[in-house]
């Protein structure tokens, strides 16, 4: 049987008298894209940090395969103005890379012309592309993208998703993708997990092109990069935080 890159088993994180997430089980295999969706504060980033090994779960186990290369695109990364940092230096942050390799990788995300720019002169979209380029330069086995399309406009979002698809094809890594968009995910996603403190539901996404609701909103020229995810919740989240299983 194929071995998973990472495997969260019933994981929970307990902080300041409450469970941030609980009972989360996720497996990511090679060449597989798993998308994690959920509202704000649902524990998506927390789950990602467990998968990365940054946070130790207070409950459950997290198995990360030995000797795999992990790359991370964090949700927020602010660089202090006191720190002079060019795109080139940022690409060498974790390990030194050949200059030709750096230019090639920046080329994939389309920002090779910014090589000597200071990173704080980059626009939001350019910075996201830089984070992506830095994450893929070492050809990781497992890539975690925490809201990689935030601050990126609609065409930019599709372009970034296309880049991600190319990355999976080229470097054959497993991807854990986090998105706050509850209904629209990347069509290449193999598995969607909806999180709200715990796993609410999970499954495969449906092609978005056939969705009448979506056509009504965006017209017929929808990009096939996106797909629709239909939630199947068997419970309700009540305003006081408790969960109602009755129907």
């Amino acid at each position: 049987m194929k071995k998973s890159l990472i495997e969260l088993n019933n994981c929970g994180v307990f902080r300041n008298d409450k469970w941030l997430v609980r009972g989360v089980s996720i497996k990511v295999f090679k060449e597989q894209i798993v998308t994690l969706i959920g509202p704000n504060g649902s524990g998506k980033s927390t789950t990602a940090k467990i998968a990365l090994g940054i946070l130790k779960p207070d409950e459950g186990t997290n198995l990360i395969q030995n000797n795999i290369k992990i790359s991370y695109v964090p949700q927020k990364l602010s660089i202090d103005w006191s720190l002079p940092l060019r795109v080139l230096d940022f690409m060498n942050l974790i390990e030194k890379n050949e200059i030709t390799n750096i230019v090639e990788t920046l080329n994939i995300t389309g920002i090779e012309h910014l090589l000597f720019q200071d990173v704080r002169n980059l626009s939001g979209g350019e910075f996201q592309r830089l984070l992506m380029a830095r994450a893929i330069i070492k050809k990781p086995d497992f890539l975690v993208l925490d809201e990689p399309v935030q601050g990126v406009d609609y065409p930019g979002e599709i372009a970034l998703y296309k880049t991600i698809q190319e990355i999976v094809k080229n470097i054959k890594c497993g991807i854990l993708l986090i998105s706050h968009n509850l209904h629209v995910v990347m069509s290449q996603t193999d598995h969607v997990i909806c999180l709200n403190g715990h796993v609410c539901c999970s499954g495969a996404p449906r092609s978005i092109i056939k969705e009448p609701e979506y056509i009504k909103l965006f017209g017929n020229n929808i990009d096939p990069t996106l797909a629709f995810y239909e939630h199947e919740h068997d419970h309700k989240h009540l305003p006081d935080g408790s969960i109602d299983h009755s129907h």
Partner: protein
Amino acid sequence: MFEDFLFRAFFAGIGLAIITGPLGCFIVWRRLSYFGDTLSHSALLGVVIGYALNFNIILSVFVISGLISLSLLYLQKKTNLPNDALLGLLAHSVLAIGLVTLGLLSFIRIDLMGLLFGDILAVNFNDIVIVWIGGAIVLFLLIIIWRPLFAGTVNLELAKAEGMRPELANAIFTLLIAAVIAISIKIVGILLITGLLIIPASTSRNLSSTPIQMAIIASIAGVISVILGLYSSITWNTSTGPTILSVALVLFLITLFPLKKLPIFKKQTKLSMQLKNEEQAVNK
């Protein structure tokens, strides 16, 4: 040569300035300016204990500052207080403990002015050896931990996720600062060492566009401050430590003017030249 007190002062000061450059950059990047102050406040306790136990002062200051920096790391994890509150808490409580201890051990006489402002003209050959060997060890360790420390400065979680140990690098880094403060006591004194860490680094920020550049220029700015400061202090008969820092400030003020437009700062790096050549080759 080492018989001349002026030469000894130059050697000691230059050795110190070379290490405070890169360390000061990390202090500025990590917003730890008050950390230097906290450690130098705790140095008094180290000095008192050193005198009381008849122990090497530099070593006892290093041990106390080291303990304080490790307790800061511990408190950062255990409490919800912001960094500046923790630093203030440690600085003043340890200073108080130092003063109380000093009062209890009434047989100790400390040259308080010397401790506060240093006496670079009184350094002996032993001090120079300590500065240069200690400085070389600090610099060597800093180069070893540079990458994880720097990656952790940019983003701790990213560095951790990608297999580095930035927290270990942080712990080593704080011990290095403790070591530098211990080494510097005789040269600039505990009141002014933070200035020697921060001012050259700030000067350098105005001139540099890469992290390594900033570290190197900070060292150079520190060395220039020491040389000019020593000369000025002898010329005008002013106390040496404060004069060195005043020169450092003047250098900082000069860099506020747009010096980056000067030709020497416009020189293209070898790398960019190579890239341009490659680009031209591709275009052909």
